[in-house]
């Protein structure tokens, strides 16, 4: 992300240090990850220490310090989905993609995350790919769904 765009985002929030998290959320949403140069510019503009940014960028799950894959796969591990068998779904997704939650595969195709409740408990177990909800997943179905993604 270029410096100008980072500055625009910082200015949108009036360069207020208390809006640090909102600034980072905007960068994350646009860029899908937080490059180091962007963080350094934010530290400079908001006049906050890099340690605070580093802590926030790693403390909150919304942020990624590494590039993400083309497709974001989220498996809901909320209690209702857990009780309906989400761990088994996660197992088969891990097997198919070859990655564990928090990882991105080497082709930068899939990024896998577990999330704690998407609030679609009626459809549990839920697998969300690029924002699209796939409900009532069973382990056997996961391969069929994932095969459709390039």
């Amino acid at each position, binding site marked *: 992300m270029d410096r100008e765009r980072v500055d625009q985002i910082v200015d949108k929030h009036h360069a207020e240090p208390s809006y640090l998290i909102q600034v980072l959320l905007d960068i994350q949403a646009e860029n899908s990850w937080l490059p180091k140069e962007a963080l350094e510019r934010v530290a400079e503009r908001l006049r906050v220490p890099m340690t605070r940014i580093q802590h926030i960028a790693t403390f909150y799950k919304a942020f990624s310090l590494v590039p993400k894959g083309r497709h974001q796969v989220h498996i809901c591990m909320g*209690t209702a989905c857990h009780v309906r068998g989400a761990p088994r779904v996660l197992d088969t997704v891990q097997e198919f993609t070859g990655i564990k939650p928090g990882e991105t595969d080497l082709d930068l195709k899939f990024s896998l995350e577990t999330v704690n409740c998407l609030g*679609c408990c*009626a459809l549990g177990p839920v697998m969300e790919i690029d924002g699209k909800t796939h409900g009532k997943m069973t382990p056997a179905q996961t391969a069929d769904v994932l095969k459709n993604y390039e």
Partner: protein
Amino acid sequence: MSRIQSPAELEELRKDIISKRDPNKPCITLCSGSACHASGSREVAAKLEEEIEKQGLSAEVDIRKTGCHGFCERGPIIVIRPEEICYFQIKPEDVPEIVTETIKGKKVIDRLLYTDPATNEKIIHETEIPFYKNQGRIVFGSNVNVDPKSIDDYLAIGGYAALAKVLSGMTPDQVLQEVKKANLRGRGGGGFPAGAKWEGSRNAPGDIKYVIVNADEGDPGAYMDRSLLEGNPHAVLEGLTIGAYAVGAHEGYIYVRQEYPLAVENVNIAIKTAEELGLLGKNILGSGFDFVVKVHKGAGAFVCGESTALMTALEGRAGEPRPKYIRSNVVGLWGRPSVLNNVETWANVPLIINNGADWFTQYGTETSKGTKIFSLVGKITNTGLVEVPMGTPLRDIIFKIGGGIPGGKKFKAVQTGGPSGGCLPEHLLDLPVGFDELTKAGSMMGSGGMIVMDEDTCMVDVARYFLEFLTDESCGKCVPCREGMRQMLKVLTNITKGKGKEGDIELLEQLSETAIEAALCALGKSSPNPFLSTLQYFRDEYEAHVKEKRCPALSCKELISFYIDPEKCNACTTCARKCPSDAIIGGKNLVHMVDQEKCTKCGTCFEVCPPKFRAVKKLSGEPVPPRISEEARTITRKSKEK
């Protein structure tokens, strides 16, 4: 729209809006909450708009995209008013028929109606459906009539009348007394009396005070706040403004988790339209009272639902809680008096002001007044959001409204209070729902998540699951939580893997005491609750795991084996074809066998074996029977010619 300068002008505007609405005009109400979006309601909405226009009905029929209706298991949901015909699980393909048959032809489409499972009868009207009928939706009920993006809808149902009443004739103290009289207790988890919290801030020194909406809703399985904020943001704003007036705050914050984009969108629209109309901002309704509201998004941390951690996050820091020796309603955000309340708590305020504390206290029990919205999820037939008066027995919620356990399975436990709560077993089903009642039984009300579990749920695994969640979400600052839970998780994981040993349960109990006594915040202090409550009511499961290496619920992967009963297998080959790990040794007319080395315990074979055979069994605590010989595998079938 021009700014409203007085409460009288507000009433005129309201009358004007209502006069332009014909109650007999057909209106198609489509639930457009996030859960229904996930079920495809956006596509249905698009098709509806297309079809209405195609059939030339745009002037005669209204389409209202409302917030969540609550019956999430059956979404997408359409209610056609004024007849209140209720259709469920609508697909875009159903739309042309609905428009032609029901809107134009005034005929009901049977297959889209709700079927009462007890009587097998079709029910046409929304209010007669047991799921809705047995609730008491004083807060949530408005969702079905309001398009959250339209302030007119909210005004049409009486919105902002409470604010007008407050600003035109009540002193801040009078408002405070009314809320205290109503005994409104926090709906976010703590159950702290809201009136006392407000009073503490009002009396605290300092000119600058804050009111905050906690919309972080981190409990997995709970989404009541999302539906309220998405579906009726003005109700929350109105309550917040009234609270600000009572406390003496002129700045408010709504902290919404970023995982709720629709709630963020709708609340921002609501703030904007309220400001345009003079219901927010400077000189509200000409009263001289100023109040601005800002929206802050969370960034993915459950601990930020804890009030002091939330305030720390509002200050732009990592959400580490602060010690509560000095209460945050005195020293809170930026060190100033701050009233933080949950979304549902704020949404109750306009009702209390409009109808009076006495009206409010007629609902509920001695110590828990009003209603509570629960998210009824898990192993339940009618998954959705349920609002009932406090004091309603758990049994009624789960069976009368929830429709009981699907698949003919037996109820085992209901988990309330999220990761800070506990599991209640069958013999406590008659417990009336209330703050103190649930706490006494070893659980807690929490934010309202109610997760139903059946005979297939392993309670030791439930405790392990919550601990895994909490070790991830803990801020990590204090030793009893960070290190205590680290060790508790290790022990519980070992127990579920068959590596439990004598002394494990005692160690877990000691670690629990350390967390309860010495942890920094409520997350840490309540982290042992899932373990302690499951130990209290399901001790036999723990002992089976530790002593016999057996999982009574047949759930823990390392402790179960899948086995195909040679007497029952009919070689239909379904399991072999569906097995994702190629772990079934099959063959035509040969009894199928599970290759235990390859089996990943996914359970697919168990799910797909046809009910008439039921050949796949789960074993635990006993060795898998040895493989039968090749000759014994051959199934001789009776020839059909004879």
